[in-house]
C-alpha cells in the first residue's frame, strides 16, 4: 500500500489547518453560507436533511487496518456508531457536527486519510478495481496509476471550479468491476508492444442523462498521461456548459459536439500541454509502484474443508479466485437481509480491520457495490475468517445475488432525494430472503436510487429502481437491462411506476418470467436481452 512521505503528510496537515480556519471564519460570520459552501464541499462536508454529512476519501478503495480502525473510531466518537460505505468506495458519516469537523480531519490525517475533494466541482476521489493486485486477469496493478492521479488532481489550481464534478476510474482488467465507462473519464490500462498505457474513455456517467463513455484515445503512454488528462480537462473547463447545472457534466459536452470533435480538440490541446513538462518521469510511477509490490505470499496451497454447509455456501458465493493459487479474495457482504446496504457498525468495522491485519496482509478494499474485500487471504485461513465474520453478522453469502443491493441513502438522509431507497431495498431483500431461491436466480444486480441523480446506479442495474415524487407520493420506476460491467449498458424504463409494495411485487414477477424463459446458464440480464421486454411487461402489467 502507498505510504505518505513528508510531502504527502504536509499536504493533508496543511489542509486540516486551512479547513479549521475556514470553519472558524464561517462560525464567526466572516463568510456567508453561500461562500462557505464550495469550501466545505471540497472537504466532503454536506448539509443534509438532519445534520452535516462528512464523506471521507478512501483513495481507490484501498486501506489498511490502522485506517479502518480510525473509521470505526470516528463513527464511535463523532457519529452514531456506524458508517456508510458508498458507491464511490468512500465512507460517509451522517450525523456530524460542524464544530467537530476539523478535529475529525486532524484524526484522519494521523493515519494518512482526508476528505479532500470528496465533493465539489472538482476532480473527485479516484476509483478503481477492488480486486487490484489480486485479480488473475489484470495486466498490471492499476493502483499506482490511481495514486499518481490522486496526487496530480489534489488541489489542482486550474480544475477546482469545473462546470461540474469530475470522476475518474482506473482499471487494468478486461472484466470491469468498477463501472469504468460510466465515469467522466475511464482509464483501462493495456499493454501495447510490451509497453503499458491507458485506453481513455471520456464522457460517461449516470445521473439524469446516463451515457456510456466513448473511447477517445486507444493508447496513451504512461509518461504522456497527465498531459493528456490536462488536455481533456482543459477543453471541458473552457467549453463545458455552465448555463444549466443539469447539463454541465462532460458527457453533455461530448454528446453535443460529438466524440470526434472533442477528440480533435483534446489532441490539439495535448500537443501544446505536452510541451510544458508537467508529466512526472516514469521513475515517479516506479516509486509509487514499489509500495504496491505483491505481499510475501508464503502459504501452502491447502483447500478449505467444506464440511460445514453454511461455510461451503459462503465459499461458493463470496470467495473469488486469486492470482496466487494458495490464496483467495474474500468479499464481505454489507447487505444483511433487512439491513441498510453499505452500513457497518463501529464494532463490525473493527472486526474487519482485525481480520485484514491477521489474514490479509493488512489490506482491505471498499467496492463500488458497497461491500468490503479482503484481497489476500490464504485458503487455509478461510474457515477461520468465515467464523469471525459469522460471529460479527458479516457472513451473508449473497455477493452479486438479488439481495446484494446497491442503494443510495435516499430520503431517509439526503436533501436531494425524492423517495426513500432504504426501505425498498429492505423489502426486496426480505422478500427474497430464502437463500436457495436467491442462488437459483443467480447473478442479479439490483440497484436503487432515490432520485434522478442516480447515486444508487439504477441505470446500471440488471434491475434498476428509481424513486420519484409523483404529486407528493413516492413512486418507483423499474428499469431492466442495465450493466456497469464490461457488458456496459443503460437500463430501459419498462412502463408506469409503482408504489413501494407494488415495485417489490413487480420485481418478483420479473424473476418468475426469467425462471420460466431462461436457457442454459443465462443470467437474468442475458435472458432479458435475448427475449426483450414484452414477456416481462405482460407478466407485470398484464
Amino acid at each position, binding site marked *: 500500500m502507498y505510504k505518505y*512521505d513528508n*510531502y*504527502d503528510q*504536509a*499536504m493533508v496537515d*496543511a489542509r486540516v*489547518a*486551512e479547513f479549521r*480556519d*475556514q470553519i472558524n*471564519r464561517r462560525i464567526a460570520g*466572516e463568510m456567508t453560507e453561500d*461562500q462557505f459552501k*464550495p*469550501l466545505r464541499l471540497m472537504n466532503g462536508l454536506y448539509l443534509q436533511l438532519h445534520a452535516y454529512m462528512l464523506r471521507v476519501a478512501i483513495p481507490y478503495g484501498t486501506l489498511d487496518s490502522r485506517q479502518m480502525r480510525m473509521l470505526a473510531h470516528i463513527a464511535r466518537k463523532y457519529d452514531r456508531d456506524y458508517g456508510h460505505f458508498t458507491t464511490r468506495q468512500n465512507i460517509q458519516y451522517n450525523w456530524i457536527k460542524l464544530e467537530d469537523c476539523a478535529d475529525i480531519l486532524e484524526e484522519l490525517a494521523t493515519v494518512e486519510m482526508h476528505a479532500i475533494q470528496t465533493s465539489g*466541482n472538482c476532480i473527485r476521489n479516484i476509483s478503481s478495481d477492488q480486486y487490484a493486485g489480486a485479480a488473475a486477469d489484470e495486466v498490471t496493478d492499476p493502483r499506482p496509476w490511481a495514486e499518481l492521479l490522486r*496526487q*496530480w488532481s*489534489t*488541489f*489542482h*489550481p*486550474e*480544475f*477546482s*471550479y*469545473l*462546470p461540474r464534478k469530475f470522476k475518474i476510474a482506473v482499471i487494468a482488467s478486461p472484466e470491469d468491476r468498477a463501472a469504468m465507462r460510466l465515469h467522466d473519464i475511464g482509464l483501462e490500462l493495456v499493454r501495447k508492444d510490451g509497453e503499458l498505457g491507458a485506453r481513455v474513455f471520456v464522457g460517461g456517467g449516470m445521473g439524469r442523462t446516463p451515457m456510456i463513455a466513448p473511447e477517445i484515445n486507444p493508447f496513451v503512454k504512461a509518461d504522456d498521461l*497527465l498531459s493528456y488528462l490536462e488536455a481533456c480537462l*482543459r477543453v471541458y*473547463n*473552457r467549453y463545458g456548459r*455552465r448555463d444549466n447545472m443539469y447539463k454541465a457534466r462532460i458527457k453533455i459536452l461530448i454528446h453535443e459536439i460529438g466524440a470526434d470533435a472533442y477528440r480533435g480538440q483534446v489532441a490539439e490541446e495535448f500537443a*501544446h500541454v505536452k510541451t*510544458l*513538462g*508537467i508529466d*512526472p*518521469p516514469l*521513475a*515517479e510511477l516506479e*516509486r509509487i509502484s514499489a509500495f504496491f509490490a505483491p505481499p510475501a505470499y508464503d502459504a501452502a496451497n491447502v483447500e478449505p474443508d467444506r464440511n460445514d454447509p453454511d461455510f461451503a455456501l459462503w465459499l461458493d458465493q463470496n470467495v473469488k479466485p486469486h492470482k496466487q493459487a494458495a490464496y483467495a479474495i474474500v468479499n464481505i457482504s454489507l447487505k444483511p437481509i433487512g439491513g441498510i446496504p453499505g452500513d457497518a457498525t463501529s464494532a463490525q468495522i473493527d472486526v474487519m480491520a482485525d481480520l485484514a491485519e491477521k489474514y490479509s496482509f493488512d489490506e482491505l478494499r471498499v467496492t463500488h457495490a458497497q461491500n468490503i474485500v479482503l484481497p489476500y487471504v490464504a485458503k487455509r485461513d478461510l474457515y477461520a475468517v468465515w467464523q469471525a465474520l459469522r460471529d460479527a453478522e458479516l457472513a451473508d453469502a449473497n455477493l452479486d445475488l438479488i439481495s446484494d443491493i446497491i442503494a443510495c441513502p435516499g430520503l431517509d438522509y439526503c436533501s436531494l432525494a425524492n423517495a426513500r431507497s432504504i426501505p425498498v431495498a429492505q423489502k426486496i431483500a426480505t422478500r427474497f430472503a430464502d437463500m436457495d431461491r436467491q442462488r437459483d436466480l443467480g447473478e442479479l444486480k439490483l440497484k436503487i436510487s432515490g432520485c434522478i441523480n442516480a447515486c444508487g446506479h439504477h441505470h446500471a442495474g440488471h434491475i434498476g429502481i428509481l424513486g420519484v415524487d409523483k404529486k407528493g407520493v413516492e413512486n418507483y420506476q423499474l428499469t431492466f437491462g442495465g450493466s456497469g460491467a464490461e457488458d456496459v449498458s443503460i437500463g430501459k424504463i419498462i412502463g408506469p411506476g409503482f408504489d413501494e409494495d407494488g415495485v417489490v411485487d413487480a420485481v418478483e414477477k420479473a424473476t418468475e418470467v426469467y425462471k420460466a424463459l431462461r436457457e442454459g446458464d443465462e443470467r437474468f440480464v442475458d435472458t432479458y436481452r435475448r427475449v426483450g421486454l414484452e414477456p416481462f411487461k405482460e407478466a407485470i402489467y398484464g
Partner: protein
Amino acid sequence: MVEFRYRTDEVTEQPSVTLDAFLDQSNATAVRLEPDDDARALIPFLDRLTLIEVAFPKFRDGRGYSAARILREAGYQGELRAQGDVLVDQIAYMRRCGFDSFAPEASLNPDAVARALASYDHAYQGAADSAVPIWKLRHG
C-alpha cells in the same frame, strides 16, 4: 479596485477594453476578458499588452483559471488581474494559474489572504507559477 498586487512595475493607467474592441483596433494596451472569450485570440498581441483583466462574474465559474494559464503558457509577462467575485480561498489557486493582481468586488481581509497564500509549502502539480512540483523534488 486593485486590492492585492504581486508585481513591482507601474500600474497600467489605461482602462481596459473588451476583447472585441481590442481585436478591432488594437492600439490598446489593456484588455478585459469575459468568461466566454477565447484567451488564445490574444496570443498574437501579447508583447504589446501590459494588462489583461479576467472577469469572474461568479466565483463558481472557473473558466478564467484556464484563460490565465493559457496566457502565461504563451509567454505573457504583463499584469494578469482577476476581477469580480474573487474570494480569499481562491487566491492561492489563482496565483498558481498566473494571476498577479486582484480586484475583488468585495474587499478581502489582507491577513486572511496572506494566510491563504502561505497555507501550502509545496504543490503536487506543475502550473503557471514557479512552484516546483513534488514529483520533481522527489526525483531531483
